[in-house]
């Protein structure tokens, strides 16, 4: 349970995902369930695709028609609560996730895929690592994840 251990249950997670047909293009998923005083996701989106409105305590809502999956909101979210997901084909999904630990992964490496409870669930391929001044020390990592974990995968861990 989110309130007692920080893990949202699957039904809750699914409320943040769009209908599968939308996922042929990359989209932002905001895993931000509470009403907290915060709005950088909304103000940083160049396409006006995240709605919070005047009351900054409102939880963000993504307009999946407008979202381009550019990933700008991902590294602007102080809660590290946003990722980009796209269903590539019947085998794989592509994620863009925020990552603030060091060392950073390197393109082409295989890392462990981790779920919301912190458990290793699969292996993932690092496709791209972006970190410029604009990212302000929060790297954006593009990873290829087996499709069956599309609702489970959330972060990466170095394999040991």
């Amino acid at each position, binding site marked *: 349970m989110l309130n007692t*251990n*920080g893990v949202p249950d699957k039904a809750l997670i699914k409320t943040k995902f769009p209908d599968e047909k939308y996922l042929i293009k990359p989209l932002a998923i905001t895993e931000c369930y*509470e009403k907290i*005083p*915060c709005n950088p996701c909304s103000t940083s989106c160049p396409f006006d695709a995240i709605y919070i409105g005047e009351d900054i305590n409102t939880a963000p809502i993504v307009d999946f028609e407008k979202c381009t999956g550019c990933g700008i909101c991902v590294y602007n979210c102080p809660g590290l609560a946003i990722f980009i997901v796209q269903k590539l084909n019947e085998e794989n999904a592509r994620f863009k996730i925020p990552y603030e630990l060091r060392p950073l992964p390197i393109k082409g490496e295989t890392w462990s895929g981790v779920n919301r*409870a912190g458990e290793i669930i699969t292996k993932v391929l690092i496709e791209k690592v972006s970190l410029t001044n604009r990212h*302000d020390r929060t790297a954006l990592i593009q990873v290829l994840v087996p499709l069956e974990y599309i609702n489970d995968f*959330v972060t990466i861990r170095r394999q040991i």
Partner: protein
Amino acid sequence: MKQIDLVIIGGGPAGLSAAKMAAESGLASLIVERNFNVGGQLVKQTHMFFGSEKQYAKTRGIDIAKILVDDVLKFPDLIEIMTDTSVVGLYKDKVVTLLQKEKYIKVKTNAIIIATGASEKVLAFENNDLPGIYGAGAVQTLMNVHGVLPGNDVVMVGSGNIGLIVSYQLIQAGVNVKCVLEAASTIGGYKVHASKLKRLGVDILTSHSIKKAIGKNYLEKIVIGKLDDKWKFIEGTEEEIEVDSLCISVGLSPLSNLLSMIGVDMKYVSTLGGLVPLIDKNHETSIKNIFVAGDVCGVEEASSAIVEGYLTGLVVAEKLGFKHPNYDELYLDFKDQLHNLRSGPFGEKLRLGLQEIMR
């Protein structure tokens, strides 16, 4: 005796913002800061902040400090900063005694803004004085200001935002955070912070607390236990965890002793962190021309401390005859920002607390 229109005690976000707004209005001030640098709590915050962009949300705390300091440095003729200087005495006739190195300095002023922030609460348990047991703030200072790790294996006590954020920063620094203990039955801080930790494999144990610390010359082990709904330990649930450091983050309480010293009306309000001054809508205390801003009048966030600082700076300047050209507009904007920051469910207790201290 040194003479200056406005003395601001504390160079954190509230104090710096107050000085800026006073200077914009044309009023000169002196910021007195007991640390070797200004910035307050912000200088050790390496994470991105919440709030709205008006209060620099998504910028890292340490970078917000730089922005606020740069703003103040734009007024070299109007703002004087004394660091490494503590305010040790405060009198009703608005004479302030400063202690700089071993030298006492007396300053006569017309108005005072007290922005001394808050200090960490301590937790009572057996052997809580063993080396290796720190407050979360001390750990942040060690790590993020001095670049020193507190230890290798840490347990955090308290799952408020500070406990969660400092745990995350410990992991970033390469420390093994074994778990976070929370006495209440639910996590205290924002769930986005909790989820961030949990996905890194850190368990947050709700209804758990520390029973005692064990160690000869320094911390070696802790004993934790499960709590019932009256926060009493349940027999037989004890567990030992090997650690070399323990980090306590069970809340902050306002650093309001200067206010008690000068005799302003105070009240104990637990939702605001402890003993706080009664204030009017412009943050003036029961003594004329003594104002407060930031955590000292209710433990909150940097975002609200900044806006409270602006508000008091604006109002004090006006009272002393320096009305900002955009006074009315700014006043409404600051009030509006504060309202907005506090209007969500996390602001509920705070709103009730703030009602209690309104004069």
